[in-house]
């Protein structure tokens, strides 16, 4: 009985191994050149946010054939730009991993630093506004210095 069960388990495991066999060797298309060209292109499988060059799913229905295509084009002597152009022609602009810095899509790159600059301007404005000497103007002569000295003395206790 034990032998039969073991045989059965082995058969199941063999069947399982057979079911996970990859038809074509996926590692043939993981080379430095393919990865470099693939890093410009988005993996459009819908399950990851990687590029064709960095997608780690060996059987990925998008990245694996894309890598194969890149290999084919590189063999034909096409450079990375032409490879990318092929995919853009086939898939549209979404083939790029990042938005192209032209037209409306340039905003994707412009807005974050612009927001930072706007924030800096906002802080500069706020600092100028809040540094107006409200207290000093309303105190008798010399009192502001006296108060400030007193504050410095107090603060020294905490630092």
């Amino acid at each position, binding site marked *: 009985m034990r032998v039969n069960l073991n045989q059965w*388990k*082995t058969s*199941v*495991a*063999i069947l*399982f*191994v057979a*079911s*996970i*066999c*990859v*038809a074509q*060797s*996926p*590692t043939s298309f*993981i080379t430095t050149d393919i990865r470099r060209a693939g890093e410009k292109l*988005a993996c459009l499988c*819908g*399950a*990851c*946010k*990687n*590029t064709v060059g*960095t997608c*780690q*799913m*060996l*059987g990925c229905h998008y990245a694996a054939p894309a890598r194969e295509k890149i290999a084919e084009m590189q063999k034909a002597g096409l450079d990375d730009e032409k490879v990318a152009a092929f995919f853009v022609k086939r898939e*549209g*602009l*979404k*083939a*790029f*991993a*990042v*938005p192209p810095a032209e*037209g*409306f*899509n340039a*905003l*994707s*790159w412009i*807005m*974050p630093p612009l*927001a*930072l600059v706007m*924030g*800096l301007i906002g*802080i500069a404005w706020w*600092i100028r506004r*809040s*540094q*107006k000497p*409200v*207290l000093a103007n*309303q105190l008798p002569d010399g009192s502001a210095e006296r108060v400030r000295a007193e*504050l410095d003395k*107090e*603060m020294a206790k*905490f630092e």
Partner: protein
Amino acid sequence: MENIGGLCLILAFCLGVYSVLASVIGAWKQRPFLLVSAQRAVYSVWVLVATASALLVYAIMTDDFSIQYVWAHSNKAMATIYKFTAWWGGQEGSLLFWSFILSSYTAVVVFTTRKKHEYRAMMPWITAVLMFTLVFFLMLVAFVEHPFRILAIGRAATPMDDGRGLDPLLQYWTMVIHPPFLYLGYVGFVVPFAFAMGSLITKQPGDGWIHTTRRWALITWAFQSTGILLGAGWAYAVLGWGGYWGWDPVENASLLPWITATSFLHSVMMQEKKGMMKVWNMVLVSTTFFLCIFGTFLTRSGIVSSVHAFAQSSLGNYFVVFLAVGIGATTWLILNRLPYLKSETQLESVVSRESSFLFNNLILLASCFAILWGTLFPVISEAVTGEKITVDAPYFNRVNIPIGLFLLFLTGVGPLIAWRRSSGDALKRAFLMPTVGAVIFMSVLVSLGIHHVYAVISFGLCFFVTATIGSEFWKGSRSIAAKDNVNLLRGAIELTHRNTRRYGGYIVHMGIVVMFIGFTGSAFNIDRTVEVKVGSTFKLGRYDLKVADMKGGENENYVWNHAIIEARSGNELVATLKPELRKYAVSGSQTSNVAIRRALNEDLYLNFAGMTADSKVILQSYVFPLVSFIWVGYWVLLIGTLICLVPSKIKLQYAKMEVVGIARQPQPVEN
């Protein structure tokens, strides 16, 4: 059972509506009995939502496949713990889970503040805001995405023999606790928002609500941090490629409120200590809350494509309306109350702790904006140009790495600048040694052959921040040790206990530094995908990896097959790893169970990806340097956060340069 569950939800919704109305009318017309009954309704709603949740969990545990939700997210073969997680594994159940956590938070808030006189005026409004939010979710769960829908053919209930089960990828231990922590974080941010709105409506600009909500915000922030890190840990250990952050829209959605909450936790100190930035804090609290709702919207609406998202549904429209009404009302309220939110003090110098908080806020929000912009840009671009584009991980890395490094720099600079103003001499004293040390450290790294620019800068900044924080502890501990005649460790503990917020905060910063070391390690990852026969060896970094054997078997949930890999460094056997492939019986889906040899300096990570037709094992092998620092950093961050929650031994009040004409007296505050 499904009828009782449904009834509980409808009753909870009705009582929730009553609680909102009774709170508002009771506060408006000064009717104490209405206020009391509104609070009792809060407890009743909790009982009803808890009952509905318990019924759903019971149905899942007892394999009641007549309920559609149970059939879709559970099956008989699943382990008990994973059956329990099916409660939040689908759209309807997770909405119920949201409602349960929110009703629990609301009950806790009402219960813990029932005898606090300072909240008597604003409590009805706090209750109304909390319950209004809860009513929204109860409406969704009771009428739109009902978890107790039964499977039926015609009018006859038709139970199925077995369910479809939870996604195998989710059957991993961190996935048991990742969603609850994330939800505790998401939902918890409703509480500070409710207090903020309560103070605005009742025109109480005082610091009382700030003290209470800071504690809530800190606890919630810790939950959110834990949730995010558990998710990262899950992705690292389960997905098979060692990534812990993929810039997926739903991942980003969890990070956005965490960033604004971090910003709030810093800027709220300005309000506590100096009475400044009251408007800004209102904006931050509100933004955090709405980003939580927005994140939920992103996850459930299908507006962006994500592997984490629930199935596309009509929920998006409800969220849009809720967000529009909420943001509109909050904006109006803040603008209307501007006269009550004036600063009590003025900024005395640009070179001051106050300014460093401003820059910290700016950088955090810039990062938040960049992530939000990148997440939404595909939708915006398609709406404007009509053409789809992709914004993948390289965009987020390119935009956020410089921002993150600058933030790391501020983490070291901010704490060393004095409140009010710092003199040139003080700055020189504080920064000279850490800066020189960091420059020397970076030079050493370059001379050792590390030429990755960001990595060198990041390690240098980590050194700089560690030195500044270390010097703070060193100076304070040494002084206490000398004065009280104790050793340095006792001195450090006493120092921390005297001012838990300050030194706890430093420890949180240290946690961030340790995590940055882990992030930076990714610049030196090594990966190799190979096809090897059993008995063969291949090289990866300093390791020789030999496929020693293959084994297979099965249990009632899945069939498995693993490769036995011996990892040697030199002649020493450092580990025997067993990466595994599984095929699940019910769903038929196949998953990899990676094998990891964890060490502080680097992880060796193996993924059994499949077999070739000529019986070779396909192995994806990786070396991830320093990745363990991310998990260690999280624990440091958590310990620091917990220390911040401990009351300080000594309470201090900071001197303020008050603005004439602001009526209220500043109250004594901690630190």
